[in-house]
């Protein structure tokens, strides 16, 4: 077992760890960006919607 044959398993395991971590962190980042955009659009919509103008 103590030979080069098992080295690709070691490489595969560490590659899998980094890939899973990277995908998850990227998904958080992209969901955060999408939500931030939605929040900004909603705030703009609320500020400029007709019933708001009437009140003003």
């Amino acid at each position: 077992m103590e030979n080069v044959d098992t080295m690709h398993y070691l490489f595969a395991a560490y590659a899998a760890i980094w890939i899973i971590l990277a995908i998850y962190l990227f998904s958080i980042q992209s969901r955060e960006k999408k939500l931030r955009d939605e929040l900004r659009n909603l705030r703009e919509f609320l500020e400029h919607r007709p019933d708001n103008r009437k009140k003003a």
Partner: protein
Amino acid sequence: MDLTKQKKLDAFLLGILLIGMILALYMAFLGAPRERTMGDLQRIFYFHVPSGIVGLLAFAANFVASVMYLIKKDRKWDSLALSAAEVGVMFFMIVLVTGPIWAKPVWFVWWTWSPRLTSSLVLWLLYLAYMLVRAYVPDPERRAVMSAVFGIIAFLDAPIVFFSIRWWRDMHPSAMIEKGGIDPAMVPAFLTCSLVFLVLLVYVIRRRLFLESARVELERLERAANLVR
């Protein structure tokens, strides 16, 4: 805590994490001795086991937050419960992927239905189901109560995962860090990696919690604007 302080803390945690990860990799590949029978392959242990430990801690955080939500009915606990569950699923995914990669050259099988492996897979599936429950219940209060109850029940499997190698015969070596288990020369690398994974757990849960807070705020604004029922 205001937004600037939160971002500063996140940047600080990220800095610690980057240095810690380099140190963890150094300890796992160069600091720890080569294991006698498995050779370098055993170095999977230094990231595989800490992933399992922090995964269980994340599920424990989900359990505590679920109980707290049912007592206090505060949305913050529900957000923490969701964040912890999702992060726990991610860490357990690492465990369930690296485990078979390690098992194949050592046990000569990718997977075996041993108590530790089976209970770990069941735990992961339970928290996947927890997130599906959340996705299919539109009412926020009902969703929070249902998922809190589900989270509490799902956590019953966590002690089974932890104690399975003590309660039943299993292919996993028992009590790795107990006396007579792990070689003392491997302890510093194992502790370094565990500590770094603990910081990673805190960092990722914080990031996920921040995302959830933004989602709750969006939901609140949409309701205030009568855009949703």
